[in-house]
């Protein structure tokens, strides 16, 4: 018969879904309530009903589905599911596995997804940064060699973090980490784009990429999809705050980079200097980020009963973002507001570790949704899926 698909169940794949927190997938009995209650699902071949049975049968192609990314995990489906199959949670697990599938090296993604390896993952930036410090000669355990400061000694005088960790070294490390992330994302997106373009419901893509991308980004920035969630409606605002927190901080970082290397104005930039506006944006960004992530945390706790408790993969990113924000705020506070050098420098070190994790592991953590969801939404828009 023409056009038949051979179904090849993969038991190992199902077991991995179950292990990653998608144990409820098997409970689905395909009543399709989920697709009916979902406000985001397209009318034509809606999700998540079909993804649920693909997960149950261990059909790996589900990872190539752009639809798993159109889901914003409103959890309306989970609330209304008559069998407790939690489609919202299952799709989150599928997204995690898709991130792993498209990431290179995928082994690293596996490590990121497993709490056992968390210490190892944190240890990597710690050692890397310590190694750089040592190479720069600011780290040593021996006192006798006549260095300006000894060992892990705290620099004297006004707290200026670049005294201890030169800006050049930082920028080199973090640009490197970012470049790595971009490279991995690029590889992943390339494969993802190729995969989704052979999906059964492919239509000829309409319109230019740029024009559509602008529309999609506008959609994302306005959180138009998020606002359609019912059960977790509060997330649209919470997530928006986190996103804008990051945007502000990115603006600040970019500006600082320019100031440092183009205008040769050395950091730190203080609230009471002529660059006060930069600091205001930075503080606003940090505030939004911290408040937003705190609200995300509260909302998740409050919704755990209805929407499911979330997986390690979810909480990992929440804690990482919170850690970035907290260490950043503390670094500033302990430097500018209540200078305590002996605390300030170590906290700053932790801040650097957090940011490194955020950048370097981005293609492997839940943060990767930033890229894959954008691509999927672009594809959905261009293939007339109602996005």
């Amino acid at each position: 018969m023409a056009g038949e698909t051979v179904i090849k169940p993969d038991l190992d794949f199902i077991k991995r879904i179950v292990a990653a927190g998608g144990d409820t997938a098997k409970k689905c009995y395909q009543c399709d309530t989920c697709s009916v209650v979902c406000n985001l699902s397209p009318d034509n071949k809606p999700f998540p009903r079909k993804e649920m049975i693909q997960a149950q049968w261990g059909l790996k192609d589900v990872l190539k589905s752009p639809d798993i990314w159109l889901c914003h995990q409103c959890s309306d489906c989970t609330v209304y599911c008559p069998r407790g199959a939690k489609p919202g949670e299952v799709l989150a697990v599928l997204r995690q596995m898709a991130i792993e599938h498209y990431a290179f090296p995928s082994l690293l993604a596996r490590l990121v997804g497993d709490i056992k390896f968390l210490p190892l993952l944190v240890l990597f930036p710690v050692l890397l940064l310590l190694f750089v410090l040592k190479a720069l000669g600011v780290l040593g355990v021996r006192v006798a060699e006549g260095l300006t400061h000894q060992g892990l000694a705290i620099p004297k005088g006004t707290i200026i973090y670049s005294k201890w960790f030169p800006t050049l070294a930082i920028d080199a490390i973090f640009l490197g980490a970012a470049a790595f992330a971009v490279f991995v994302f690029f590889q992943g997106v390339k494969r993802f784009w190729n995969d989704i373009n052979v999906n059964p419901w492919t239509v000829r893509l309409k319109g230019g990429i740029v024009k559509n991308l602008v529309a999609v980004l506008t959609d994302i920035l306005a959180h138009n999809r998020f606002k359609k969630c019912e059960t977790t409606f509060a997330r649209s605002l919470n997530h928006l705050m986190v996103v804008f927190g990051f945007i502000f901080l990115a603006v600040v970082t970019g500006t600082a980079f320019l100031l440092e290397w183009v205008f040769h104005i050395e950091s730190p930039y203080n609230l009471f200097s002529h660059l006060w506006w930069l600091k205001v944006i930075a503080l606003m960004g940090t505030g939004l980020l911290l408040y937003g992530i705190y609200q995300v945390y509260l909302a998740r706790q409050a919704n755990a009963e209805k929407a499911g408790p979330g997986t390690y993969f979810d909480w990992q990113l929440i804690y990482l973002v919170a850690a970035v924000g907290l260490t950043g705020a503390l670094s500033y506070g302990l430097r500018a507001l209540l200078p305590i050098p002996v605390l300030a420098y170590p906290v700053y070190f932790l801040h650097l570790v957090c940011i490194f994790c955020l950048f370097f592991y981005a293609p492997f953590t839940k943060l990767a949704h930033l890229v894959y969801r954008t691509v999927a939404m672009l594809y959905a828009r261009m293939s007339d899926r109602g996005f």
Partner: protein
Amino acid sequence: MAIEERKYAAYLCKGCGIGEAVKFAALTKVTTREGKIPLVKEHDVLCSPAGLEMIKQDIASEGVNCIIIGACSPRVKYEEFDFPGCLVERVNLREFVAWTQEPNHPETQALAEDYLRMAAARIKKGDLPEPFQTECDKTILVIGGGMAGLSAALEAANHGYDVLLVEKEAQIGGFGAKLHKATPSSYPFDKLQNSPVLAKINAVQGNPKIRVWTNSVIETLEGEPGLLDVTIKRNGELETLRVGAVVLATGWKPYDATKLGHLGYGLPNVITNLDMEEMAKKGKIARPSDGRPAKAVAFIQCAGSRDPDHLPYCSDICCAVSLKQALYVRQQDPDAVAMILYKDIRTPGNNELFYKAAQSDPGVMLTKAEVTGVTEAGGKLKISAQDTLLGENVVFEADLVVLATGMVPTTKDDPILNLKYRQGPGLPDLDLFQGFADSNFICFPYETRRTAIYAAGTVHQPMGLAMAEQDGVGAALKAIQALEHIAVGMAVHPRAWDETFPEPFLQRCTQCKRCTEECPFGAIEEDEKGTPFYKINRCRRCGTCMGACPERIVNFKDYSVDIVGSMLKSLEVPTEEDVEDDEEVPLRILGLVCENDAYPALDAAAQHHLRLNPSIRFVPLRCLGSFNLVWVSDAFSRGVDGMILLGCKYGDDYQCHFAKGSELCAYRLTKLSETLDKLGLEADRVQQMQVAISEFDTLPQILDDFVARVKEIGPNPFKGM
């Protein structure tokens, strides 16, 4: 115990609104003068201790023994108005008059008076029943030693009845004893267990009240309930015993898989669910062709079931069985997968919990699918399917295919009972239920049209072990009930209080055989000359024979063609002389209503205080099957303008408590129009309507429409002649 010296009395109740609706002085006058009832008394609340005491006093002091109670429906307060040794006639003044008519209207008064006239006519001709009693052997014969039969045998034995359990095979236990594992029967219903039949077998074998005969089949069954002579062929030898009642629990056989070539049956690695069970019981699930392990097993559900070309029905257990067998596959090999391709998963009752549990196994996969073909290629089976949840046209690859074939009742093409009844050796309704010995499940489960023979288990309906166990209990209790009723000369369902029975005046019989043909229960046999005779213990007292008989020779003590005819003739039919010149002569219409559904529906309408048309006088019939055509001429010669018959629904989905009564009545009415034509009367004056007990709200409209139609035709031209 005929009443020697009749002393009549009528007691009229004013309670529940009757007193406000009609004038009692006129009622008393009609009862005394026209009804010829010498003693008529009124009471404010007749069912009160004082009211009842008044009646009892009259019985004791005046010797009253024929009592008319003009009060509420005979369907209520029957214990209060039960006076032993007295003939009691209830007149439904409350429901049929006070609650459904306009108070103090002349037509309302006329209606109440007519009901009293009819009651007086009836009580004159009725008599007290004398129960028909025979010897009654209380042994219960259980045919079939599967779950339902074992359960029925134990239930009957535990109540003290002797049981003869007859099993065709060498061992008792049936299919339930051949299982590898059974689906769970106790909370939390998530684990396979040993078959519950095994414990039942031990219990039956250890019960001294139960005789177990294996390798035995029923050769013949003759006689009547309480006096059934069963001839059993046991190990090739015939033996005849006396039993009282029968539980038929011979179960099912699998649907013939050779008819399922389109699902691959015939290929070496395509097997049935029974083959799978056998293989699992032997200990190894493997491919029959080469003995290699089955890594991927596909179960095709509804194989030949819910399919108009094969079995049109659902066999109830195949879904749970396939889920169970999927777990066999998984438990034997943790790397194997079981794919279940279904139309719908149907796991009724607690099996739903088992479905959930089995589904949670990572290697049990389910999808809806219309399987279009199974082929073998390169050692693998390829199952093509349409309309799956996974896509339009898909192919599944499997090492082994299991066809979930359904149940065919053993009664499908074997009467089993081998009754020596005039109407045939098997149960008459089998063709109505695809071979199952079923009945209207809501109204009368277990009933068959052969009295004291009750069906249980999968011969009754498709069902699993848990339900068969309960079904056996139910059928055993019905058998016990039948025996105890028969022993005291009482009818069984649905007239389970009735001590009357048909008493034909055989000298006038013309041997037309209508009664023997039409009796829904095969209660009438014929002697060698062709004269009918009753096997009373088979009779349910519906009166179908009475309705059928052209010679009108069949009588019950309180119900006969003559009794009903007298009632119809007692009506007061107003003519033009009775009204002023400018007034219309009111219509008089008879409503002959089935006591089982239509009469209660009228009562229900009354309880809702719906208005019923005042021109209609209702006369209860045991069943429309007892409707005799002579009543039509009785009524029309009296001047009645129309006749409406309210009976149960008939046809495939019949609700008739006597299975065939309302249908037979409708058939008789088709013959009526000729008679009416000859009389110059319009056929529309007599109509039969089907009413379910729950349709009381439609009654006012049905009745009004009928009266309007009669009004359109015009008054009966014989009126006043």
